[in-house]
């Protein structure tokens, strides 16, 4: 398991330049003179990196990135100058602004006035607590706006380098999983599977683990499991030290990053000395294949996300968990726009047209209460004439 020798050919300087151009175009469309980025994934998109720690640590060791319509390189206030690439001039890089305190927010307002003089529309992606109710007074005469209109528009279609980063993140995630699947035998605990997974992904060169690894023990009927809010399958359950035992149906879900880009891995497994799905579970898998194949047949530029949902529904009317979706985008966040087949509704899905470079995670679920079900996550990139699969892991023990 060498961490080296198989890294993809990504031109990081080109990737940063292309992302900044897209971000600036989206800012122009929205009439933003400056965007203030506080969310780590938006900062990553702007080319600024930081250690991916627990959320509270990130709130208290904050990075701030300001992108102006007038300039090229972003302005950065950071405790981690090593996360700023060479294409940002040294005079754009400053020490941290403590945005959890009023004095830090006041300093931010002064900094914005300095780097974007005369700005009339300034957009934020997030507000910290001391910004609430105070920003209009601090940025006198400035109209405040929602920066995610620009970051969302820029991020939805990936560049070739971004797709290679996602592909490699997924490769690391999948490679780490062979050992985990082999270890899923009676008597193993969820935390032991997490240990194998995290050890492997870092040996393989992952930048970060991004969600608490999920090995969700799934009773075969909703009524047998813990009470749920919507009478649907109780998924995902947070992992602990619980034992997994013979014939347990286990739904895995993990995600890591490589150079800021996310993987997303989900499979249905059976914990057993000799994992064999029942005939009913095989039927679920067969139906799941029909669903995913129907969706695949629909993916091409010009189709809408609504077309994907209708294709899945034609095979299996209820093809997703009620609290999730048929699919979602994947990039600098593991779940990002567009959400496909969610409670945003089919009318929303029809507003999103597929464009080459979009990357989706498709995660249909076929469930037969009392029998169990099948769920797998598949990453696809929309191409000029169809799509390309970025997920390669197999379907054991169902195939």
């Amino acid at each position, binding site marked *: 398991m060498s961490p080296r020798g198989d890294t993809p050919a990504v031109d990081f300087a080109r990737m940063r330049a292309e992302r900044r151009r897209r971000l600036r175009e989206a800012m122009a469309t929205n009439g933003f003179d400056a965007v203030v980025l506080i969310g780590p*994934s938006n900062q990553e998109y702007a080319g600024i990196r930081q250690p*991916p*720690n627990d959320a509270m640590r990130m709130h208290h060791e904050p990075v701030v990135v300001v992108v102006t319509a007038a300039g090229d390189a972003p302005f950065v206030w950071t405790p981690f100058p090593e996360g700023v690439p060479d294409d940002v001039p040294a005079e754009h890089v400053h020490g941290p602004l403590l945005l959890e305190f009023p004095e830090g927010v006041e300093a931010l307002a002064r900094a914005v006035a300095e780097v974007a003089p005369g700005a009339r529309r300034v957009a934020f992606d997030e507000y910290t*607590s001391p910004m609430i109710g105070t920003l209009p007074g601090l940025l006198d005469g400035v109209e405040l706006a929602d920066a*995610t209109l620009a970051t969302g528009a820029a991020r939805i279609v990936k560049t070739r380098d971004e797709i290679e980063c996602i592909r490699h993140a997924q490769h690391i995630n999948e490679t780490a999983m062979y050992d985990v699947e082999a270890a899923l035998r009676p008597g193993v605990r969820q935390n032991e599977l997490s*240990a194998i997974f995290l050890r492997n992904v*870092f040996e393989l060169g992952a930048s*970060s683990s991004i969600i608490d690894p999920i090995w969700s023990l799934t009773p075969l009927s909703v009524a047998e499991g813990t009470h749920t809010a*919507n009478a649907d399958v109780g998924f995902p359950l947070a992992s602990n030290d619980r034992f997994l035992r013979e014939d347990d149906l286990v739904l895995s879900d993990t995600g890591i990053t490589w150079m800021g880009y996310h993987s997303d891995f989900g499979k249905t497994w059976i914990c057993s000395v000799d994992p064999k799905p029942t005939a009913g579970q095989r039927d679920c898998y067969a139906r799941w294949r029909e669903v995913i194949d129907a969706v695949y047949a629909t993916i091409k530029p010009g189709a809408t996300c609504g077309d994907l949902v209708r294709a899945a529904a034609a095979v299996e009317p209820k093809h997703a968990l009620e*609290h999730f979706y048929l699919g979602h985008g994947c990039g600098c966040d593991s779940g990002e726009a567009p959400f496909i087949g969610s409670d945003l509704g089919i009318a929303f899905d029809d507003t999103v047209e597929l464009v080459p470079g979009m990357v989706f995670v498709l995660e249909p679920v076929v469930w037969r209460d009392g029998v169990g079900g099948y769920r797998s996550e598949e990453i696809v990139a929309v191409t000029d004439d169809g799509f390309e699969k970025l997920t390669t892991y197999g379907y054991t023990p169902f195939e």
Partner: protein
Amino acid sequence: MTETTTTDTLETDPFGTGLLGTPNLGTGALEHRERVDFRRLREARLRRFLRAMDERGLDACFFGREANARYVTGVRRLWTAQSRPFVPACLVVRGAPPVVELLAFSASYEDIPAEVGPDHFYPVTWNPMNLIERFRAVPGLLDARRIGFDGLSPLFEGMLRPAFPDAEFVGVEDTMRAIRRVKLPDEITCIRTAAAIAESSLYAAIAELRPGVTEQHLRAAFLDRMCELGTSQFAQQGTFSVLDPGAPLRWTTTDRELRDGDLVALAGGALWAGYEGSLARTWCCGISTSPSAAQRATYARWRGVVDAVADQCRPGRTGGDVRAAFERAGGGRPTMSIAYAVGLGHEGPIAGPGMSPELERAQALEAGVVVAVRHFEADAAGGCFGEDLFLVTPGDPERLTTLGPGPLAAGD
């Protein structure tokens, strides 16, 4: 090591045993040495919070941050690294009794504390309008005049303001920081446990130090051991990096190979029941070599600074005293927090870069505060990085991280 063992929930679940059905067979604790009474802890935290709501005249509060939602309810939502975009995870409406609503990531009741009833949680939604509709139906919320938030976003502000047109929106992270900083006894037990996990995990990485292994291998060893001990949630994912003479500390772990004689910074943190234990050490990767006299002198200077700062972790002192002690001991110009509070994760800096003297003086220390003290002593011999946790007590500060200093201190 789970917050809710099967026996516990069956006996305390007031809604009947039918709600918690998913098998949950683990080995949380032995029956005669129960370590933490989590229900008592949750109730004590909620009482503190409701008192704070009264004092600030808050009718309702929305929390998007996991640590705040956990403090107020004990909910264990799916943990993710990095801060999330603001989405309300928890809503509390003051009343008799108060209403607590939770947005769970799963549809399952499994990780919801028993005292939050089954009608008061709902699965994550992707349509903010559906969330707003749900909030509008919460008893008492439409009458709220003053609503607190621990964060917000333009998107949610744009939807919540029209839904509650007469309410004043106020930021309350400062209130949460204040009530979270002084720990309850059960919280200290959680932090001690997390510190022990972090120490054990860091030492597992130290035991792997040898020429030819990579920095990433050390991080893999740290997280492997941490998971083996029962938690896969990290406070700091870890800095495992070779110290280059004269260079700043590199936070990013890479696939660089260790060589004989390298000085290596190792830092990591674990979360247990949401509480943080973190520490850092500098160790020598030496098979045929041992630390030089210059490297040991660097360690001695590091020790002097950290001891001086730790000695300020006493009731009545402030971040201003911490800063002064740091400077008197020759700490120089800090490149990272000199000291910060720890509890449900990082709980804010006490002294360090970007803070005005007034802000540092406003960070008051009192018994029950847990302080992380950290310092990087840079120099031409390679430097020294370390971090320890200290509990402020009525007497002398108590060091919660007990791992020894390693080969750099040899001969001390």
